């Protein structure tokens, strides 16, 4: 019996078009746009000004708040300006725009060789300090600053480290390719996080649609102490923190609490690789693997791309924007955000760029809910999406709160499975917003 989480979940078609395409290093455009709000929490504060020359890897904006992260220049060039530009949120936010000037001149102290360094010299404090300096955020999509996540709150003890290689979203293959091409780096990165947290066991959870990665990592993991690869049965949303913990350890994170409550810390494989780079090579987070794909994309590929490259440049590299593209999605098709245009730059949180043609994009007309209960059975959090939708339409916020609307993690399983094609998640997100506002105002 393969492990998986017991409650809910759906099985969308895989569509991993790029599972076999090796990671390709994306070329640089003339200009890069570095968003300052690349992590959850407060935006970083720029420490460069117009006209400054910057080197690759140089710190250009500092995360000053507690939940915030540093931003580094991914290229060598001159600061063109600091201006608001449209980003993935659909709104304008401050960005540093850099004119790219020739080859990379690296900031001092960064090791750009490919040599694998297995020995971990840094102490736990140094590791977290290095992670903080390198501006590492969760690369799974939520972009939560990693140094905050690795700082265990007082009175809590971490027991297990879970490395998330589930990649349960259809289409995306960036984690899969990374596991195949940088397995040792991921394993060393995992060991580094284990050392920082002081835990002795780590699990790398991988879904069984990535057998090659499972095989490779299992083989290599033998040389590392306490790291075990767990094969998971393919089911969406296995990559969600709470579901992954339930699947691997059988522990259930209580409602409204963080994974540390049950002694677990979850990190994405991409983050593990980034942590390896930061700690062993002093390399800040300036590039990530991103999948550019879609049913009609002529050359769907995985790119190792510098942060800040406008998406249209990556799309050009993948064979250009297909004629009938109607939806541009950052992330996977289940949880991704639609983007307004292709000028939006790549950020640390983007694992995939999805181009959907019109016939994929248009929602169908909703029917009345026939109470088939599929959403209830699909909901991994054990909520009743159809009922929450009704409560939100009727604006019964107290009842919605009582029915745990806040626990919804917006995985989209309910709306995916709904035979009546109802916009369940739209309403639930709206309700979640309202209810959280009510809860906040109550606290004040």
């Amino acid at each position, binding site marked *: 019996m393969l492990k998986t989480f017991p*409650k809910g979940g759906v099985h*969308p*078609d895989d569509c991993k078009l790029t599972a076999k395409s090796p990671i390709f290093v994306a070329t640089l455009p003339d200009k890069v746009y570095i968003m300052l709000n690349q992590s959850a929490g407060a935006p970083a504060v720029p420490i460069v000004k117009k006209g400054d020359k910057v080197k690759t890897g140089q710190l250009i904006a500092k995360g000053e708040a507690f939940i915030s992260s540093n931003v580094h220049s991914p290229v060598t060039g001159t600061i063109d300006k600091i201006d608001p530009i449209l980003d993935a949120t*659909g709104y304008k936010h401050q960005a540093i725009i850099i004119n790219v000037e020739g080859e990379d001149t690296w900031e001092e102290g960064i090791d750009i060789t490919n040599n694998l360094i297995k020995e971990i010299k840094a102490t736990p404090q140094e590791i977290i300090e290095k992670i903080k300096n390198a501006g590492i955020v969760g690369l799974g999509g939520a972009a939560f600053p990693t140094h905050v996540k690795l700082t265990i709150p007082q009175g809590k003890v971490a027991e297990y480290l879970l490395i998330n290689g589930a990649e349960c979203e*259809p289409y995306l293959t960036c984690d899969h390719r990374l596991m195949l091409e940088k397995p040792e780096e991921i394993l060393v990165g995992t060991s580094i996080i284990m050392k920082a947290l002081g835990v002795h066991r780590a699990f790398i959870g991988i879904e069984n649609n990535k057998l090659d990665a499972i095989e490779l990592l299992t083989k290599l993991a033998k040389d590392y102490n306490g790291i075990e690869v767990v094969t998971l049965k393919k089911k969406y949303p296995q990559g969600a923190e*709470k579901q992954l913990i339930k699947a691997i350890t059988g522990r*259930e*994170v*209580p*409602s409204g*609490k963080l994974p540390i409550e049950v002694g677990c810390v979850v990190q994405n494989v991409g983050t593990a690789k980034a942590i390896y780079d930061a700690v062993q090579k002093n390399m800040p987070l300036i590039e990530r693997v991103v999948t550019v794909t879609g049913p009609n994309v002529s050359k769907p590929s995985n790119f190792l791309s510098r942060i800040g490259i406008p998406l249209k440049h990556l799309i050009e590299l993948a064979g250009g924007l297909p004629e009938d*593209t*109607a*939806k541009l*999605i950052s*992330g996977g*098709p*289940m949880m*991704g955000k*639609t*983007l*307004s*245009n*292709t*000028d939006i730059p790549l950020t640390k949180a983007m694992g995939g760029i*999805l181009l*959907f043609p019109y016939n994929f*994009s*248009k*929602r*169908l007309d909703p*029917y*009345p*809910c*026939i*109470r*088939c*209960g599929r959403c*209830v*059975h699909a909901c*991994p*959090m*054990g*909520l*009743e999406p159809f*009922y929450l939708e009704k409560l939100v339409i009727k604006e019964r916020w107290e009842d919605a709160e009582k029915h*745990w609307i806040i*626990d919804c993690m*917006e995985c*989209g*399983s309910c*709306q*995916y*499975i*709904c*035979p*009546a*094609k109802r*916009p369940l998640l739209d309403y639930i*997100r709206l309700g979640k917003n309202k209810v959280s506002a009510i809860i906040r105002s109550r606290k004040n």
Partner: protein
Amino acid sequence: MDKKFIISGSPHIYAKDNVQRIMLDVVIALIPATLGAFYFFGLGAVRVFFVSVVTCLIFEYLIQKFLLKQKPTINDLSAIVTGMLLAFNVPSNLPTWVVIIGSLIAIGIGKMVFGGLGQNLFNPALVARVFLLISFPVYMTSWPKPIASAGQLSDVVTGPTPLGILKESGSISAASQTGELPSYVDMMLGNMGGSMGEVSAILLLIGAIYLLYRKVITLHIPLSYILTVIIFTGIFWLIDPTKYADPLFHLLTGGLILGAFFMATDMVTSPTSYRGQIIFGIGCGVLTALIRLFGAYPEGVSFSILIMNAFVPLIDRISYKHFGEVKA
């Protein structure tokens, strides 16, 4: 970039199933039993079946178009399902005008007054059946004899249902002395008196397996329902085998299989969570057995399902378990 992209919330992909497909699956699943009914009850069954389906469609269309002024949604096929189930639940010699009244009640009272598809509290076909049973008891309880009446449109040889014989004679031993009880094989195949769709256990089960395969229904409701009836009647049979019929008799006669697989599982009027569905099934089972053993009517499937339908909102509220609830 002058291209206009669509902005919408996630998710961006959808499962293939839709409402029509689900309804179509139910229709397909009912086809074997329909053909069986045509074979056993002949032209009368064909007449009742088509009148019921067509009038249900017409009433749905007319009510939506002229009374509610909505866009008619008969293409969702739910009216066909209601019509078929209504036909299954009445005797095949029912006069046409009674069938039409049944359709009007099913669609009008059973479904539309609540707001149409998905809003109704009670299974529309059962609402109509119970209405007809109470309003036209004579028509609704004169059951044509199978095969013998196959060639007739309305003037048919009638005879009682096995459950009716049982209730009449008061005990199973007395009932078997009448010599009118069909054999178990006949009950299985459907060669007995009863509503036109409920008689053939085998054909209904074929349809039910198709529904299970298509994942339109799950086993939670039918299994808990049927098991409860078997256990309940089994206990009484063990206590006094001469007075009470054995569980197999109860399983194969009356509308239990039809009710358990096709009526109680109606999505709109059953609980959504698995735990709720099991509670619902047990409730239906207990009520059915009580009515059959001690009630005034020989058959209790329709009543028990309708009564449990009324409890669905309550069951829904108590029966689901939330992730992370235990230790919260």
